[in-house]
């Protein structure tokens, strides 16, 4: 997932704190080693390499992950789609000798051949690849929750790169955890504040802060039209489930207004905000 992991546990002694954080980090690393397409030995890399040659057998965890991917794809009407990598690379100027027509005809979760009986996956063409980038952090935080229970921790704040946060219990000096979303252009301003109470927050955006990348098109692809989202905007979702927050922030970011509303109706007990940046660099916040 290539991001920093910060864990804040209040009222715990150092030795116990180290033990807990070590277990949490170990679990997150384990997940990363399975899901990251940047790791050559991960299951995802294995699938991307071999599933276009033959149906690859999935173990329990990978089957469960891809089942959830499938379910979120359906519940978001195709907006959550982990097969957009080839389009993304093409839009960034790395076409790999392929034409966009060929790519368009090859990608899409609906092209993936998941056999739920035999628990295998087959990718019918070589362009089709899985990328769990918009899923991994939420899944990791979700998997960490049983560990938190195991150690009977009530008040804990975990951040993965500040874009995915799990906030349980209370801040030592207040109720819940107060967080705010920075203005993406003027970081001194908070565009929206939230009180997290046993909830997760996830933000997705298409605004590059890395100066080397600022001229690139957004890396979020709208699967309906296979085009990047060009508006400068971020979506923040608050949900009980970190995975749901993560998936929805990605899916809502790439959808148009009509589809956002449609998706939104499929999910209860969540808060979702769209933050759009205007030409004058002001931010417009709207609840989805």
């Amino acid at each position: 997932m290539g991001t920093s992991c910060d864990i804040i546990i209040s009222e715990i002694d150092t030795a116990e704190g180290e033990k807990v954080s070590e277990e949490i980090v170990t679990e997150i690393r384990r997940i990363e080693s399975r899901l990251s397409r940047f790791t050559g030995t991960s299951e995802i890399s294995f699938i991307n390499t071999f599933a276009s040659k033959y149906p690859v057998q999935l173990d329990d965890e990978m089957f469960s992950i891809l089942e959830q991917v499938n379910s979120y794809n359906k519940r978001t009407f195709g907006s959550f789609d982990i097969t957009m990598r080839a389009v993304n690379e093409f839009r960034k100027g790395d076409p790999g000798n392929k034409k966009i027509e060929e790519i368009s005809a090859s990608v899409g979760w609906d092209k993936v051949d998941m056999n739920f009986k035999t628990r295998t996956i087959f990718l019918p063409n070589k362009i089709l690849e899985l990328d769990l980038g918009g899923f991994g952090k939420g899944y990791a935080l979700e998997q960490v929750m049983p560990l938190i229970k195991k150690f009977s921790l009530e008040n804990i704040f975990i951040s993965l790169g500040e874009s995915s946060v799990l906030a349980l219990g209370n801040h030592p000096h207040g109720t819940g955890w107060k967080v705010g979303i920075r203005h993406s252009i003027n970081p001194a301003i908070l565009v929206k504040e939230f009180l997290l109470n046993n909830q997760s927050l996830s933000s997705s955006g298409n605004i590059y802060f890395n100066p080397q990348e600022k001229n690139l098109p957004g890396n979020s692809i709208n699967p309906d039209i296979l085009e990047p989202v060009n508006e400068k905007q971020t979506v923040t979702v608050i949900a009980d489930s970190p995975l749901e927050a993560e998936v929805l922030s990605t899916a809502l970011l790439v959808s148009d207004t009509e589809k956002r509303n449609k998706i939104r109706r499929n999910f209860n007990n969540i808060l979702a905000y769209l933050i759009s940046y205007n030409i004058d660099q002001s931010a417009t916040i709207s609840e989805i």
Partner: protein
Amino acid sequence: MKELDHSSRREFLKALGIYTGTSLFAASLPWFKVFGSENLKDSVTAGHKVSIGMIGVGSRGRLLLLYLKNNPGVDIVAVCDNYPPNLEKALELTESKAQGFEDYRRMLELKNLDAVVIATPLHEHAHITIDALDAGKHTFCEKAMARTTDDCLNMYNKQKATGKILQIGHQRMFNIKYIQGIERIKNGEIGPVTQIRAYWHRNNNWRRKVPRPELERKINWRLYKEYSCGLMTELAAHQIQVANWILGEYPESVSGAGSINYWNDGREVHDNVALVYTYPSGTQLIYDSLTSNKHYGFEEQILGSKGTYELEIGKMYVEDIPPPPGILQLINNIENSIFETIPLGGASWVPETAVKDKGTYIIDEKLKDDGTDIQMEAFVNSVREGKPIPELLDEGYNASIASLLGYHAIEDRAVVYWPEHLRIV
């Protein structure tokens, strides 16, 4: 050979400004006392020029000549080499203003000579240095000091006896990147230094073209034990000096191994060496050098409990990457009993970008000078003042002795301890 850019003085003065008036002069850089900014200015404007003779003007000697020629406070009055092609090239560089010598002893007879710069093969350093000091000439001698430990000690004692300046060429001591990095290390930025690793890897045969077979040993002197200790005296001495400087001590023992496992071409010195130096504080310097692979290049890695320095590349790495600003604020709030909103995301947030410590540069700009230019200027300054630069000779001596003890550890396949008679106070 093209003219050298002398703007390193500007770079150096800029950096020097940081230290002026701080205790650093006394603490970690005693040799910098000679660089009171007034002195440095003097060397440029002074009416009296320092007259210098160059002894040994092969490639290194000619480079030093060019640096000195660029210094308006210097007159190069003589050049000496017993290999005619080198002598001719050097005389050309002085536009034939300098007098040429094949025998350094004739050159030392010159009355108008303040100082000499020696860049001959290693085995000739000692007797030429001793003759020069005896002749009343201040002396700059390239590293390593000498081919044997006894020669090093004789040179050291001769300096003490004559009171003349003897400076050994360790340019890293005048390299701003090293000066700043080592100051920060000494200030505890990476915690206690617990290990130093240094290496110098090349992939070439280390040979120079020989016009006639009978000149092989003269030109490729580095490859023969009679004249050189190979990688130990030619490369390792520099990096051992850096380790000594950082630790503020010199090794008490060394063990090592070496062999010729690639360039089996008649050379006598090893083409690869690996050693462990142990310092009185218990810190080890792990050193290796080879000439059959250049992938890792050369580096000095300074390992502390809180971070790492790589001085050649000029970078510092922390052990624990600081948390992002929002998380840092949350921690500070908790510690100060404050319950308020912490910022997430925003301009400091780079989505999906790996958080790896890529290191921070010690200095922002790429330096033109590796310290050699300023080192020569320091020598000229101290000649003008007639006073040796404090502790500079000790640094050169200890680095040379350590490199030679390493050579003996390899040759004798034994743990070699720093002998009592080679200790200087």
